């Protein structure tokens, strides 16, 4: 198969799946083995479109095209802050959030942890990882070990630095505060899902004059992190960290595909605003229902 076909076929197949799913919306009789009721067809269409875009951007990346990603100050600050920790001879504290490993924010946090571990291993800086759940701790330990191995320094990895603190919210906050005040880390990184303990951690970190980088998609906690931390990765930025740090073509391609879908969503929002305005002004008995049309009502 020549190179052109290698890219055209997967893209064609995935676009076909997206198109079929979209055209079938609301028209497939639900059975015991398959249903496309409600917004399910749209989900398939989005995932398939994302996969098609992924293949397209992967093709472009392999061809040597440059994939532009805007600068994310918070991610750039991670390397700077690890360097600062090295200079000060103080550890880096990484908190993986207070959710179980089944939560996508925790998964994203653990992916970033791998990069941070590699970086601290290269800089020969101590990394302490605080976990809310034991299962997260087990995975985090493996990831940190792998990060140190990738950096060529497996001997520098200290398993006791990946800690299970507590599965109780404020006991966890008290435990992490204790680490912050005793060990005085020069860098505190909070990435994952956080709740009321976010400000308790970030304010304690502020008292120790640490550089603080936070990242969460939890809307209610973002203002606290923005107020108390030096850098905050807002929502989707947290999911982009891994790609941004590694600059791996596959991850960048995925990021670009997400951006295109986002542009599509923005276009839909604008269309929705136009439709809603028309319905309001015209007062039609049969309003233009964009949402219903999309999910096949």
């Amino acid at each position, binding site marked *: 198969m020549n190179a052109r076909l290698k890219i055209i076929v997967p893209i064609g197949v995935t676009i076909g799946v997206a198109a079929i799913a979209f055209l079938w919306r609301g028209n497939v009789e639900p059975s015991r083995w398959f249903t496309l009721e409600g917004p399910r067809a749209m989900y398939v269409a*989005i995932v398939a479109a994302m996969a098609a875009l992924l293949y397209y951007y992967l093709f472009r990346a392999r061809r040597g095209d440059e994939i532009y990603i805007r600068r994310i100050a918070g991610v750039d600050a991670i390397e700077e802050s690890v360097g600062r920790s090295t200079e000060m001879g103080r550890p880096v504290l990484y908190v993986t959030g207070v959710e179980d490993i089944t939560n996508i924010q925790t998964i994203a946090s653990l992916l970033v942890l791998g*990069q941070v571990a590699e970086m601290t291993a290269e800089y020969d800086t101590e990394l302490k990882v605080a976990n809310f759940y034991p299962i997260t701790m087990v995975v985090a330990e493996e990831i940190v070990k792998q990060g140190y191995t990738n950096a060529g320094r497996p001997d520098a990895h200290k398993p006791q630095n990946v800690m*299970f603190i507590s599965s109780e919210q404020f006991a966890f906050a008290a435990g992490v505060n204790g680490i912050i005040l005793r060990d005085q880390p020069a860098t505190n990184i909070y990435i994952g899902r956080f709740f009321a303990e976010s400000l*308790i951690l970030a*304010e304690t970190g502020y008292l120790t004059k640490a550089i603080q980088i936070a990242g969460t998609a939890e809307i209610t906690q973002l203002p606290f992190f923005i107020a108390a931390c030096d850098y905050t990765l807002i929502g989707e930025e947290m999911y982009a960290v891994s790609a941004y740090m590694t600059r791996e073509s596959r991850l960048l391609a995925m990021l670009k595909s997400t951006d295109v879908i986002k542009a599509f969503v923005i276009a839909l929002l604008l269309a929705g605003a136009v439709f809603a305005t028309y319905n309001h002004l015209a007062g039609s008995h049969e309003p233009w229902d964009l949402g219903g049309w999309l999910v096949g009502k």
Partner: protein
Amino acid sequence: MKSTIPLVIGCFVGWFAFGELYVPHEDYRWVFEFLRDQAQILAAMAFILGGINVIQVNYPKIRRREADWQYKVVLLVGAVAMGTAGLRWHALGGEADSGSMAVSGTAAVGTGYATLAFDSADRDALVIIDGAPPVRAWHSGNPSDITKPPGDQALSVQLRPGEHVITVRKPVEGYAKHEVSILVADNEPTSAKYEILKRWVELLPAAAAVLPINVAPGQVVTVSTDLVMYWGAGSPHGRVFTWMYDHIFFPCNATMFALLAFFIASAAFRAFRARNTESALLLGAAILVMIGLVPIGRAMSPIFPEIEEWIMDTLNTTGRRAIMMGAALGAIATGLRVILGIERSHLGSD
């Protein structure tokens, strides 16, 4: 191979979980539930590793007398104490002794009300009749006053014809609770029937709570209880565990939460300093929202609540939704990255 196998398993399970949305078949759901159960078992097993980690991290610090080692002693002693209280000691070696409730009756005399008498081994037991406020099983004249200590008089109440639900429990959680249903009939049961019922109740005291016990008017029914103390965490919580939770853990937890108020004040002070245009805008918006929410703002002008509502409903909601949509797309992309094996940084090398 070391990373390929987890990659394949991750890919398969990821797509299988995605398919759960589209395949309503019960067999598919059974497999899905099975996988979820396995994940829960795995997570529960990880708590053992978590406990070992806590000891591995803290015990060497105590031995080396590192900074604040005393707190780590408190941590380990607390963990052991809570763990010990969390075990169901009363259930070790067989079925837990849940106490007993014996019902006996005198020969039927007369008609009208039946008499319910209590002979509880627990002096502080409370009795709830048909969901009414609790009364003391042992009192000193006024059984309704449960604020006074128990007395020497056993509770005796009149039950009118009909079904009654009697609950006997301790004033605090962590003990066995007994419930019995008594049916006061209009007609008198035969003595033979009553004897069978009595024997059955004695043999199966727990089952007596389920089926109503027939009692004729004029009979005296004596309820004897032994409300044993439970141990452990779970349902129901044991007494020692509940006490430790309510009197040690909960106040500590509330104290930590209360700190948040002061942290909010200090963080808000820093955030609202007008250092640049954005900070000034933030400060202005915060002042308008605060004025719009407090009564004095409403008193000053009705425009302030309207401005507050507009800022919260229009500007704030717009920003929130934009972040949520971006985050949702990022979450989908991260999921796909892991499922498709594009993201491999969490896996070891081959």
